[in-house]
């Protein structure tokens, strides 16, 4: 390429010299540099940015980027049992078909006229989530569950006028770190202990920590550690009797067969939509939701966009718009509720597609299959000498703690052995839950076949025992 040809870039139409000259003439300048007259010399960066040479052809760029990405081994290449808030579920083809449409992918903040479809799709997202959650208000997605729970707690603080939150000590360590940062120094966060046998909340500890300062109590169900909390009603009664709110985090995909928190007294429900038709994307597929009853005192405390349905000048035509916009930081800056900006809308639209595809039959069947497969995995893992699954004596949904303490092996040793057999073993819990010792969090979903699960069981058996495997799993 000649020097003259070099300056023209396919992404920059007006880099063409003739056009540039025409536009400069129109503005009355001889050099684009003149447009930067207001930036004093001492603030100018006079060097050339030290960046790699441009890969100006699309082909060269493709070869280069692919070469780096091919260093990754994906969960399509290996069998994956990692979960813990980012889950591998099957993504129906139509979910990707819709979220890669230029119209949705590249839209942003248009008006409810030219972007009517964005408003309707996100209203429908709110609406299908509302059915799943059995609550009447759901927000346009926030960043992720970390943000959703953090905001739920701050909402509880504003609604009750109180400054303390009680949080179950079995919540995701990731989320706990986000909660602590988001609340500090405005609200205090205190942990509530769990029963070491079955994982559920220690209600005596909860009662002893409730006070007139408690804004809300937050727990997750199914919990981060996979077990299901069966005391939901009692926990909400205890919080309500102290004038506090009951906040529950939930994996929405479980709600086809598991009772939604609103039915056992939850006031604010939150969680993540990544499992609903969005790939994991190395953690980039997350999107947070918050749901409440349709009461003014709740609605007015949301920081998020809330898209509502209304009429237009033409009879029978649906229009959409922002509900109670004045509560947002867009309208009121620091006087608004927390803040709103660019969050995870595209994943909301995707989740709407996913739940519309599944329908009531699909979501119930999906949950049944997840329960069956995860129970099968737990049962067979427990057949291995020294291995116990689940660790906690409670019903579980798709995740469960596998206890390796009786094997004499560390989680790292087991995971390394599994990796050599093309398996991503569970998340080590040692750093955040040291009391569990050599234990790991495993995730089993509808994507795992019997063969996959048997392969896992055999591989773990081989990594912890040397005796014959045939007694454990009959070859399928």
């Amino acid at each position: 390429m000649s020097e003259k040809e070099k300056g023209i870039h396919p992404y920059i139409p007006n880099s063409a010299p003739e056009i540039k000259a025409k536009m400069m003439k129109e503005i009355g300048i001889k050099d684009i540099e003149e447009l930067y007259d207001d930036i004093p010399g001492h603030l100018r960066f006079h060097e050339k940015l030290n960046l790699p040479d441009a890969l100006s052809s699309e082909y060269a760029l493709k070869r280069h980027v692919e070469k780096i990405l091919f260093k990754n081994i994906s969960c399509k290449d290996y069998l994956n049992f990692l979960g813990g808030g980012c889950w591998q579920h099957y993504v129906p083809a139509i979910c990707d078909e819709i979220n890669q449409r230029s119209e949705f992918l590249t839209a942003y903040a248009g008006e409810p006229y030219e972007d009517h479809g964005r408003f309707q799709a996100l209203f429908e997202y709110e609406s299908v989530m509302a059915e799943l959650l059995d609550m009447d208000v759901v927000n346009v997605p926030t960043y992720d569950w970390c943000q959703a729970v953090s905001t739920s707690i701050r909402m509880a603080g504003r609604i009750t006028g109180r400054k303390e939150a009680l949080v179950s000590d079995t919540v995701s360590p990731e989320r706990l770190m986000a909660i602590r940062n988001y609340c500090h120094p405005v609200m205090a966060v205190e942990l509530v202990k769990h029963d070491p046998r079955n994982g559920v909340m220690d209600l005596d500890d909860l009662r002893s920590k409730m006070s007139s300062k408690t804004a809300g109590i937050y727990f997750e169900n199914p919990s981060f550690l996979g077990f299901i909390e069966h005391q939901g009603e009692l926990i909400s009664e205890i919080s309500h009797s102290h004038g506090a709110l009951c906040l529950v985090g939930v994996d929405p995909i479980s709600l086809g067969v598991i009772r939604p928190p609103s039915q056992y007294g939850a006031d604010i429900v939150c969680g993540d939509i990544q499992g609903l038709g969005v790939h994991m994307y190395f953690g980039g597929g997350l999107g947070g939701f918050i749901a409440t009853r349709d009461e003014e005192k709740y609605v007015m405390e949301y920081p998020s966009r809330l898209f509502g349905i209304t009429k237009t000048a033409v009879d029978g035509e649906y229009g959409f718009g922002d509900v109670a916009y004045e509560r947002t930081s867009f309208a009121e800056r620091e006087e608004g509720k927390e803040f709103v900006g660019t969050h995870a809308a595209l994943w909301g639209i995707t989740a709407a597609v996913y739940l519309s595809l599944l329908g009531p039959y699909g979501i119930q069947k999906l949950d049944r299959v997840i329960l069956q497969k995860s129970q099968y995995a737990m049962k067979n893992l427990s057949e291995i000498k020294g291995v116990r699954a689940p660790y906690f004596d409670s019903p579980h949904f798709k995740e469960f703690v596998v206890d390796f303490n009786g094997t004499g092996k560390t989680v790292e040793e087991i995971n390394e052995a599994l990796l050599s057999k093309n398996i991503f073993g569970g998340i080590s819990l040692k750093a955040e839950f040291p009391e569990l010792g050599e234990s790991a969090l495993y995730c089993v979903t509808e994507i795992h076949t019997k063969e996959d699960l048997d392969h896992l069981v055999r591989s773990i058996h081989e990594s912890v025992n040397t005796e014959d495997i045939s007694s454990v799993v009959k070859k399928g």
Partner: protein
Amino acid sequence: MVEDNTTAHRNTDKVRNFHQAKWDEPIIFELHTKGERGIEVPDAEKEIEDQIGDGVSALPANLRRIKAPALPEISQMRVLKHFLRLSQHCLGADLNVDIGQGTCTMKYSPKINEVFVRMPEVADLHPWQDKETVQGALEIIYKVDTFLREISGLAQFTFQPGGGSAAILAMASIIYAYHESRGEARERDEIITTIFSHPSDAAAAAVKGFKMITLYPDEDGLPDVEALKKALSERTAGLLITNPEDTGIFNPKIDLFTKLVHEVGGLCGYDQANANGILGITRAREADFDMCFFNLHKTFSSPHGCGGPAVGALGVKGKLKNYLPVPIVESNGKNYSVNFELPNTIGKVRAYFGVFPAVLRAYAWIMSLGSDGLKEAARVAVLNNNYVLKKIKGLRGASAPYAEGHHRIEQVRYSWKRLMEETGVTTEDVICRMADFSFHLWTSHHPFVVPEPFTVEPTESYSKDELDEYISGLERVVEEAYENPDKVKKAPYNSVVHKIDTSTLDDPKKWAITWRAYLKKHKT
């Protein structure tokens, strides 16, 4: 040299004879047909069924859902058709000349980058996989970090914040943690920002308990230095500011701002949402900022996705590296590793490493342009902006308040004040009429310091023809406003829907945020 044997393919003085798709599409629940099914879920194998049973029986009755969720039942192609039709009711930046969404840097998001994002080596990665199996992902994160260090002059970046507002929250959190570690958090409870900085600069900082002090512009449209001096004290925790501000005016005294804030012991955070015109031109470092953030979904080409997913890439000076959210990605020159051990870390503002696809797109975009291309993108964005400025200033009823005779950087906040006074047509009316010609136009953040505001940011992605076409749209609306204002006020006509009745949206008895709420309130 190729001969120019083409003629102008269309008369750019005229606006399009446009009509947006209008499917009169029902709400998804209205498509419900009992018994239809959109997708079949994989079964559990017979051996599993035999061993385990139905799986559900293991749950005690009080944990089970009694009534199935009332989701719609719709066959697959109808679901597809419905959402495709909704997509056609939406004008993405790929379709329109999206320069009217000022402050948002609506630029081309290259399609090749979507190919990368959808590879299984990206889409099907779990964040906690063994690090040896995600070296490619960590390499991309590390390299974009090093690119942004160069572009900003700062020392270390994180991609965890899920957008600009989350990056502001992270900056405010670092400011708090920094003063807390020095035993001064209680005394230092004020953060200073400006009215032409994004609302989140004020709002996200207030989440951390800070009292906000907002500076207003002086006669030249720049934040008032005298007001800053008055605001500074031993209570000052920090400054959160954009430059250029949303007016597109570069503040030449920005280093005086940071100097004065540093003198009283505060930290300075640079909101670089408006960085598109200054890449390679001026940096956070030269202005002595302690922190800055870039929106990868704006300046660095990641598509906006109807409002996310996104990344507010947050960078800090070396002295603040230990305060960053964890983990950060490091390299020994050969391999890439993950560091969770930052002694003063604020913890987390989002899960994992942030939105990796946005980081990957930024990588590909920077690699496709290189140093010269990046600067060219900035220069052309500024050229386009000043070209549009010249044209809009020539429109009857329009003005560009402040900084008369000066050039602007990447955008301008204009005013229809005169148009409104002379015709009664407001910015909102102009916006509705512009939709009839395929164009989006936006007002401004609140409060409206500039009366009847509109904000245009042409970026480098639009050709001169397209800019001219957009201006023609504005010209047409102005003409109509003076000839027949009523026509503009009743718009739109060719958009998906007609004038929306917003009166129900602020009324708790009538608002309906979900279909079930709508049925309860309006259909019983």
